[in-house]
């Protein structure tokens, strides 16, 4: 069960009606994984319906960790948090994104939903190494992996969930899959959705990719 509306990093109080409904849905559906994103989505009661990035700093970690704890306590389940793709960075960041994510999941004692395409997109946009990011992930906490397509815009990559998974992302995924073989893999495709056969083909391509030895 995957959410986009918790606004875990937001500074508004967590929405009690939303949490109550999430709890009821989780108890009814009994999903394998309950997840949302490492981001903020509302400010002063207004919602942006986007996954806005957090500055990578101590204040963000402690803020997110306490809110993740509140969610986990309310729903009575572990929460998996997902790294987002981002298009802007902050002057107040004091650490790399992988240091931030690793410390956050340790401090919050939660699981990680690792989106490999998001790592690739952010690495390109901010000029860091996706391989270095992925070498520092606490894989014992990764319960799910996301793959998706992106598009090349004027000066940046956009995570649009509307294309095939790129070869570069598949290369990264091969290495990731070996480090957490138990994690379930989801191919996200929710823009310009092609016929179902094409989606199935894409899933098979991803499955095949882990069965081929990397050069």
């Amino acid at each position, binding site marked *: 069960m995957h959410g986009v509306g918790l606004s875990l990093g937001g500074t508004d109080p967590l929405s009690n009606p939303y949490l109550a409904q999430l709890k009821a849905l989780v108890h009814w559906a009994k999903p394998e994984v309950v997840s949302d994103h490492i981001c*903020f989505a509302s400010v002063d*009661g*207004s919602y942006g319906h*986007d996954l806005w990035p957090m500055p990578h700093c101590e204040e963000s970690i402690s803020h997110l960790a306490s809110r993740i704890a509140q969610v986990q306590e309310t729903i009575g389940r572990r929460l998996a948090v997902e790294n987002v793709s981002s298009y802007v*960075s902050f002057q107040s960041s004091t650490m790399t994104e992988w240091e931030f994510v690793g410390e956050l999941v340790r401090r919050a004692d939660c699981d990680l939903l690792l989106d490999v395409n998001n790592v690739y997109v952010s690495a390109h*946009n*901010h000029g860091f190494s996706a391989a270095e990011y992925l070498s520092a992930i606490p894989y014992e906490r990764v319960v799910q992996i996301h793959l998706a397509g992106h598009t090349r815009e004027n000066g940046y990559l956009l995570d649009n969930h509307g294309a095939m998974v790129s070869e570069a992302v598949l290369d990264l995924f091969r290495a990731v899959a070996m480090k957490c073989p138990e994690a379930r893999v989801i191919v996200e495709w929710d823009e310009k959705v092609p016929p179902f056969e094409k989606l199935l083909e894409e899933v098979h391509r991803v499955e095949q990719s882990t069965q081929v030895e990397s050069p």
Partner: protein
Amino acid sequence: MRLKQLQRVFWETVRTEPGPEEQDLVFASSPSMNARDCASIYRRMYWYRQIDALFDVFPTTAEVLGSQRFTELCTTYIAQNPSEHPALEQLGRHLPQFLAAKDRLASGCAAVEWAQLKALTAPDNPRGLTVNDLYESETTHARAAAAMHIVEVERDIAQRFIAIDDASEPAVMLRVARAGFTVRIARVPAFATSAYTRLTKGDLFAAVCAELASTPEGTARASSEIGDWIRYEWVTVLQG
């Protein structure tokens, strides 16, 4: 800068162009773009997503206004009514009212389309009408369930959604109601309009039935009308 303040600057940057001066203290540049250009990606996504969501919920309204005028009006609407709900589809809740002073036809269409959205996303009926309730109609109250909305509109608005042969009627009562996973729009027949009006008020079920039976046509067709209320759970029963 503390997190709360940083997020307010982010929000202002996304909502306004070119955004507040403080953004220069918040955002950093990327290897290929300056900080303001990076932040503006979020501004474009914000406006695109909100307006796109309104196009999704109000396709007929958009058709009436034309794509460009609809986009312009939505931009003003969103500036005045930012989303206050975690579910994006709730964004349009004030749009019919907003359009009322701008365009009568568009506002009426928006009211019908908003009723469609409400019917589609309504929770299941906790206490739908049953056959047994017919025997207790003197003591039970009945009201329209969340998945059924009654909207009264002028004829030219109704014609955007259903065929209307009768040219003499200036106003038309529409029943916008969910059946399975689709929402159906139907004209409430003349014999049933008083009964539906009572249902929207949560009246005694006996009074609703009496309205249905007040014309010969209603008496003849009451069982089919009530049968739909039971089958699709369009009516909620309130005890006492």
